[in-house]
């Protein structure tokens, strides 16, 4: 059959589908398997990562241009699988306490990963919309997963209402783009924009509103400032491992599709969106950092801090013009952010599992109660603030460097604003460190942390430090992944 000879390119997605169905089926058939299913899911993810790594460097297009497989997409597929693997590892003990329905939980996480792997390779507006909704729908369910917990249901419904409205707005923008250019394929859209004889000429003025509408949808997914209001509530109410997942997986996918749409479909309109995104990025990091200072709940603090981090990543997208340093900065930053932010959340899961609290004040004296956890949190906070020798420093170095290379005064100003914001963020990150190290604990009993959580914290901490001390292989990987995007965009 035509169109199916490229099917091996989809092997990671097929693996994820099979394992998701397997987990759901086993859960239905054997009542006692619950926690073994987590390891089945992790096995599936490891297999998917191996298949993705095997595909690295290949390039192809499937289903008459609906999906592309290139190094850029594969890079994000690895990120998605790594995220879910670590999230599952940190949920095993946590979810055991909270709910008897754990089989579907792991199945849904695998389906969410599948959705992300489809979204990062989507190259047609129809496919982008479908996989975008696939990610959203699975995430709505996961956020509201703890039916017995009113906060979880509330978080679910707030996330859902925001998401449904913004995705309808995005869809309206997509319908306008289809009307203006007569196509839904990203590459054809770009050609029709550029050719003078296309039906575009009379409807040119519609392009800006259409792009704004589409940005609303992507902005929601990555929690950019005008569309960020759901994030603190969803993070606070959701089961903590899901908050960790939301802060990395769908965001990485949002950035992947944002970069692909902007660079593939709208290269002729670069100037418009560079100014717009610069502004949003500046507001996003400043707002996120300033509000994070006042938070008393650590999950809300991390939510606002991740809004600020998105602002930094967006700086890289701003610099993603003709050169490739900007996108490379984004790729490195997202990988660093994966290990760092996920690590911070896993540490929060461990603390909340042992004490039942998410309040920052309860972290007082953690150094004596769980020295390794406290040390790990210091590493994660250093990395989030962008201090050497951690992964976060590497990410910021490349992103700010790319912005400065743009070479105009405005961009120097943006980079300086980014550095100043990192200084602000130091204040609230190290406030937690101060509590952990120098204040006395209310009770001095040492914390019991389950082994799966210790493993998850150890992996994320090790990777955060390795990326800081020995960045070369990660830089090479990011460089190889950028190349194909540059080829995609007709310059």
């Amino acid at each position, binding site marked *: 059959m035509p169109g199916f000879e490229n099917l091996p390119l989809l092997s990671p997605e097929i693996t994820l589908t099979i394992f998701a169905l397997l987990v759901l089926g086993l859960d239905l058939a054997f009542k006692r398997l619950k926690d073994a299913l987590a390891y089945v899911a992790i096995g599936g993810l490891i297999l998917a990562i191996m298949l993705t790594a095997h595909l690295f460097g290949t390039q192809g297009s499937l289903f008459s241009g609906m999906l592309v497989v290139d190094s850029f997409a594969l890079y994000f597929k690895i990120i998605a699988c790594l995220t879910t693997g670590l999230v599952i590892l940190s949920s095993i003990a946590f979810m055991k306490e909270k709910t008897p329905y754990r089989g579907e939980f792991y199945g849904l996480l695998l389906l969410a990963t599948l959705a992300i792997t489809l979204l990062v390779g989507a190259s047609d*507006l*129809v496919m982008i*919309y*479908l996989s975008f*909704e696939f990610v959203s*729908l699975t995430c*709505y*369910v996961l956020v*509201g997963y703890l*039916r017995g917990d*009113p*906060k979880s*249901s*509330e*978080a*679910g*419904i*707030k996330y*859902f*209402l925001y998401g*449904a*409205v913004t995705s*309808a*707005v995005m*869809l*309206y923008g*997509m*319908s*306008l783009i*289809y*009307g203006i250019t*007569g*196509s*839904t394929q990203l590459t054809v859209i770009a050609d029709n924009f550029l050719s003078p004889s296309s*039906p575009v000429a009379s409807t040119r003025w519609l392009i800006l509103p259409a792009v704004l509408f589409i940005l609303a949808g992507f902005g929601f997914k990555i929690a950019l400032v005008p569309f960020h*209001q759901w994030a*603190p*509530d969803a993070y*606070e*109410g959701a089961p903590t491992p899901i908050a960790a997942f939301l802060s990395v997986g769908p965001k990485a996918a949002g950035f992947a599709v944002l970069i692909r749409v902007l660079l593939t479909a709208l290269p002729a309109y670069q100037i418009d969106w560079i100014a717009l995104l610069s502004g949003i990025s500046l507001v996003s990091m400043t707002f996120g950092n300033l509000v994070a200072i006042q938070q008393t709940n650590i999950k809300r603090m991390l939510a606002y801090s991740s809004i600020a981090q998105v602002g930094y990543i967006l700086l890289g997208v701003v610099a993603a013009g003709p050169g490739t340093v900007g996108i490379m900065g984004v790729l490195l930053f997202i990988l660093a952010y994966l290990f760092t932010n996920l690590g911070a959340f896993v540490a929060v899961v461990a603390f909340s599992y042992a004490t039942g609290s998410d309040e920052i004040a309860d972290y007082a004296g953690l150094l004596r109660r769980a020295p390794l956890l406290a040390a790990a949190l210091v590493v994660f906070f250093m990395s989030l603030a962008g201090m050497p020798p951690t992964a976060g420093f590497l990410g910021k170095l490349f992103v700010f460097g790319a912005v400065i290379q743009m070479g105009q005064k405005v961009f120097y100003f943006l980079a300086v604003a980014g550095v100043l914001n990192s200084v602000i963020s130091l204040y609230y990150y190290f406030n937690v460190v101060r509590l952990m190290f120098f204040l006395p604990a209310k009770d001095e009993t040492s914390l019991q942390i389950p082994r799966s959580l210790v493993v998850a914290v150890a992996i994320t901490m090790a990777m955060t430090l390795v990326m800081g001390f020995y960045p070369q292989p990660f830089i090479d990987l990011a460089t190889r992944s950028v190349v194909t995007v540059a080829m995609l965009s007709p310059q």
Partner: protein
Amino acid sequence: MIPLSWYLTVAAILFSLGLYGALARRNAIAILMGIELMLNAVNINLVAFWRYITPQEFIGQVFAIFVITVAAAEAAIGLALILAIYRHRQTINVEEIDLMKW
């Protein structure tokens, strides 16, 4: 034949009504209905563009059918979440769903 702009105007009005409903109403189900209006406006756009701009390719129709399908799935999940919150709070007024400050 009716010009394309008429369809687009109807769709734009419908979209604005839906957006207004989604932002101004306080009842979660009414918000959901507003969202459905917005999606239907998109469908009018897609089908009108298909008929007038690319009548030889079916991509606009296909897109509209997918939108209808996804809207159904979205409504199912939305209603399930609304039911879950109703069990706890005996209300679906979004202003009273305020355990966490906005």
